[in-house]
């Protein structure tokens, strides 16, 4: 029985460092550092060190990385390949196209949905719950559902398109580059618009009702109120959500990997897919890391825009 009580005592910081009373005013800050220590250590080991490691891998001719194998000589070959090869430029182009299409369309769908469920009606709570449901569906599941719906022989989408006469032959979403890109867009928008609409809804609800009432008193119609009150108030939120969606599209892996594996002919190979492909399919981790570092720099620039905006909104 005596032994089983020790964990209790060990749980209090006093047992470890008996001489310091952390409730004393002079030692309270030390308690703060102590609380922070696990997170700082963890992040140093699993984030900071890996980032440094990946920069170093990107400057070595590494096939399958392993620490302690003895460092390879430093080289810039991976970066020469990075900027010299058409693959990188194509991946950049695909990424930006995807960002533009997914970001643009999901903000429109998200905004429209947010406006709709911001109206007063019976069942509004349930409607809000449902429109945001795709957010909770795992990406892989979302992707296989869409893969089935977009199936070139028996998929529902092709049936609808044929039936309505919009196409005469089924679209081969798997082998046609444009169609494959469109397929990726479908899944990403479906998965991405709910977060958009959740955040835009929060933004809509934070617009003071008085502004609308004042505008009504001044005789502004529905569209004028939208144009002069809703839109200006929502611009910062739209900006933040756009940046977040951009980052998500930049970094996402599961959807494209499961749906098209970056194909056909690299039509859906984004920077993330290229990183993975180089590192874990062609086992050229040095080159993969170089793509990753480029992605990180681009993400840092984009998030810098976000952080700057946030810093401004705080003041």
């Amino acid at each position, binding site marked *: 029985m005596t032994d089983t009580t020790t964990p209790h005592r060990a749980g209090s910081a006093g047992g470890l460092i008996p001489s310091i009373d952390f409730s004393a005013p002079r030692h309270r800050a030390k308690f703060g550092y102590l609380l922070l220590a696990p997170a700082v250590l963890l992040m140093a080991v699993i984030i900071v060190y890996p980032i440094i490691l990946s920069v170093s891998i990107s400057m070595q001719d590494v096939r399958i990385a392993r620490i302690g194998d003895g460092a390879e000589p430093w080289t810039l070959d991976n970066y020469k390949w990075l900027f010299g090869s058409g693959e990188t430029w194509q991946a950049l182009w695909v990424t930006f196209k995807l960002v533009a299409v997914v970001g643009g369309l999901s903000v429109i769908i998200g905004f429209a949905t947010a406006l709709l469920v911001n109206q007063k009606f019976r069942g509004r709570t349930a409607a809000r719950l449902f429109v945001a449901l795709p957010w909770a569906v*795992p990406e892989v599941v979302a992707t296989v559902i869409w893969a*089935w719906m977009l199936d070139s022989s028996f998929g529902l989408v092709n049936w609808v398109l044929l039936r309505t006469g919009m196409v005469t032959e089924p679209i081969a979403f798997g082998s046609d580059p444009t169609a494959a890109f469109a397929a990726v867009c479908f899944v990403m928008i479906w998965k991405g618009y709910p977060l958009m609409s959740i955040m835009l809804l929060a933004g809509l609800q934070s617009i003071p009702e008085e502004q609308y009432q004042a505008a009504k008193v001044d005789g502004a119609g529905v569209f004028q109120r939208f144009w002069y009150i809703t839109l200006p108030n929502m611009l910062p939120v739209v900006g933040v959500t756009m940046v977040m969606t951009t980052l998500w599209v930049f970094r996402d892996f599961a959807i494209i990997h499961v749906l098209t594996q970056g194909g056909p002919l690299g039509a859906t190979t984004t920077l*993330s897919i290229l990183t993975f492909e180089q590192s874990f399919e062609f086992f050229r981790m040095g080159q993969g890391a170089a793509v990753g570092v480029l992605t990180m720099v681009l993400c840092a620039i984009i998030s810098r825009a976000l952080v700057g905006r946030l810093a401004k909104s705080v003041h």
Partner: protein
Amino acid sequence: MQKRHPLATFALYASVLVTCAILLFPIYWMVVTALQPSSNLRAYPPQFWPADPQWNVFADLLAKHPFVLWFSNTILIAFATMTLSLAVSILAAYALSRFRLRGGTGLGLFILTSKMLPATLLIIPLFAIFRSTGLVGSLWSVVIAQATLIVPFCTWMLKGYFDTMPPELEQAALVDGCSPLGTIFRIVLPVAAPGLAATALYAFVVSWSDFLFGRTFLTTNDESWTLQMGIASLKGEFVTEWNVIMAGSIMASIPIIIVYLFLERFLVGGLAAGSEK
């Protein structure tokens, strides 16, 4: 409030219904497909209602694939990630919220930016580290890798929550003779319970849905596969049995859809706060 015109009311309900129907159709289609007999899947026109629901598809799934193993691996990873990340995040978030520490602002900014790191970059060095430590193929590799995403996010979310709590609560407890650590357990955590629940569930959902880390670190070891890896592998098989895949997808979505339906309010509040701050 003025009364809405009946026509406007009709238009409103109609557009809500149509919007929900379109947006949720894929989820409906998942369920319908799962319950169709496999012969119907190749039928033209497609069957929009399972006239003869085939419940034994779930039995098929369990018989043909190690679904139970995938499921339990995923649960183990999700719980371990949730517990580990939360334990670390709670303490850090509390320290960042309550103490004016040297380097605190810098650390806050670091956390904010590391939420935006591309995971595809991190998997390369993590793979190197796990290979050297023999963790490739072990569930722990995914737990640790997921912490890179989840710890920063949870810390930020919780800090936002702690910031809304008056510090006088803890001051009162200190004056009442409670120790600083006791203050966290007796006052801060119980009061922050809704925020903790939201954060924990967020961590659970993110971990459950992970594909990249599992695909990278666990592929070589069949015993460690997760649900998402399993489902993705079913899609890649030579003969695609869509009804079985959809049955698996239902099973893989149900836990987090339930979590979502129960805790949407907290999650939405937490996400909105976490993203705007």
